[in-house]
Each structure stands twice: as structure tokens, then as C-alpha cells.
């Protein structure tokens, strides 16, 4: 338990550095560090599936983010937005934190999942019968691809959509007029 708290504190420190540092590249590296800490935390929380996925996703995120920022000058745009926005945000974040702490005062204690607290939850059925009903020994896989298959379908659609969107945004030329403009430029 204390290990978890240490990990979370480290994550928070990493997040603060990532947001406050002026150099964009070190900020990205810090986010990567936070991601790897989360991966370790998942491992301790009994979620090896998530640990692996988080790890590889983090690697890929880093590659993409570094690709986006490397070779660009002017990457170290620092500083905050105007004072008014800052005060509003700080107030908002404070309210969020206070209300949240109050909420978690009434929250069930850590380490008591829903199937321990309630009689009839689907999670208990997944654990007790999931391996037998689906034939998968990994209950998380059984859930993702068996019970909640349309979630996985939705993810495929989201990934498909976002990559198509990225292709569409990075295409050139975007409009028919631009083709003509390019041709004119070439002719000159």
C-alpha cells in the first residue's frame, strides 16, 4: 500500500515537471516516465494485461510525440495564459479537489471491489463462470472479446477513425483550389 502511495507521488511529481518545464522534449520524456510508473502500478494492482498494454502504448506515444516535436524550432513556448484565466482555473481546480476529497470520504475503502460489497454483481459471475463460459483463461480477455464485444468493436472504430482523420488532416492539397495554386507556383 505504501508502495502505491510512493508510486502515485512520483507520478504527481513527474506530471508537475512535465507541465512546468520549458523544454518540450524533456516534458515529453517526463510524461513517458509517468506512463511507465503507471505501468508498474498496474502490475502491483493485479492487472498485468494493462501493464503490458500501457507499456507498449507509452512507447508508441513517445515515438509519435517526439516525431511531432523534433526538427521544429520554437518548441520552447513557455509561460501561461492571461491572469484571469489562471485565477479561474486555480479556483476551479480547488473546488474540484475539495469536493472530490469530500466525495471520497464517503467512498468505499480501497481494496474492497464491488463484488465484495454487493450481492449480485456481474463481476462475481465473470470471475466464477467466465473461464468456463468463454474458454479463455484470462478473464479480462474473456470480458473484452466475449461479454463486452461491442466495446472492442467501438475501439476498432475509434482507432480507425482517428488514423483516417490524421491521414485526412495531414493530406496535401486539401482543396481543389490549392492544386491550382500549386500548379501556378510550379509554372512560375
Amino acid at each position, binding site marked *: 500500500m505504501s508502495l502505491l502511495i510512493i508510486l502515485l507521488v512520483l507520478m504527481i511529481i513527474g506530471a508537475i515537471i512535465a507541465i512546468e518545464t520549458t523544454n518540450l522534449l524533456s516534458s515529453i520524456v517526463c510524461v513517458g516516465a509517468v506512463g511507465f510508473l503507471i505501468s508498474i502500478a498496474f502490475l502491483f494492482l493485479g*492487472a498485468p494485461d494493462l501493464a503490458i498494454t500501457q507499456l507498449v502504448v507509452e512507447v508508441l506515444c513517445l515515438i509519435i510525440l517526439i*516525431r511531432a516535436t523534433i526538427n521544429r524550432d520554437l518548441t520552447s513556448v513557455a509561460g501561461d495564459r492571461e491572469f484571469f484565466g489562471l485565477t479561474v482555473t486555480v479556483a476551479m481546480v480547488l473546488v474540484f479537489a475539495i469536493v472530490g476529497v469530500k466525495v471520497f470520504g464517503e467512498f468505499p475503502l480501497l481494496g474492497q471491489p464491488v463484488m465484495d460489497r454487493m450481492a449480485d454483481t456481474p463481476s462475481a459471475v465473470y470471475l*466464477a463462470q467466465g473461464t468456463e463460459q468463454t474458454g479463455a483463461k484470462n478473464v*479480462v480477455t474473456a470480458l473484452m472479446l466475449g461479454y463486452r464485444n461491442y*466495446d472492442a468493436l467501438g475501439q476498432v472504430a475509434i482507432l480507425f477513425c482517428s488514423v483516417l482523420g490524421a491521414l485526412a488532416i495531414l493530406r496535401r492539397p486539401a482543396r481543389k483550389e490549392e492544386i491550382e495554386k500549386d500548379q501556378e507556383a510550379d509554372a512560375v
Partner: protein
Amino acid sequence: MVYALCLVLIAIGLYGVVVKKNIVKIVISMAIIEYGINVLLVLIGYRSGGCAPILKQGMTAATLAANAVDPLPQALVMTAIMINLGMLILMVAICIRLYERYGTFDITEMRRLKG
């Protein structure tokens, strides 16, 4: 306590989204918000001393049901991670294109739209 730390992580991300000028920093702050939520979800499904919800050799379903952590939040987090990845790809594409158009990552200099 642990939940509150997750909330702090989310709040830091929220602060970054609203206050920072650099659009890549905003994308990073969004990623931090999602991290906080993912950890929160997994914590909700955690059982003290619980094992992973995988049936190992020599284990019966009953022992699994008595010992394993809640698998449902893990499936949700798996989905959430992939959604974040898709979001990140799209946002980075928009950032690159914005850089091409404006020559900067500074959001305060992108002021064509007002109101």
C-alpha cells in the same frame, strides 16, 4: 488517500489544459488527465492482496472468484487506453498542421476566431 492522489493527478492535468500556452503541452496535459482516470478505475476494482484475474494451472474458478481483483474495470481501462491513443494520434496530427499554418505552437497567437 490513494483516491485523493489520483484526483490530484487529474487536477494537475486540468490545470495544464486550461493554463498552458503551448499546444503540445495541452495535449500532454490531456494525457495526464486520462492517466489519472485510468489509475482511479483500476483502484476501484482492486482487492487487498488480490491476484490477477487469470486462471493459472491448478487453480479452480472458485479460488479465482475468491481471490482475484475485479476484471471489469480492467476491461474498461483497456478500452480507455486505446481511446487515448487514438485521441493522441489525431491531436498530434492537428498540432503538426497547426504548426505548418501558424509557424508556432503558441495558442495565444492563434486568434483568427473570436467570440
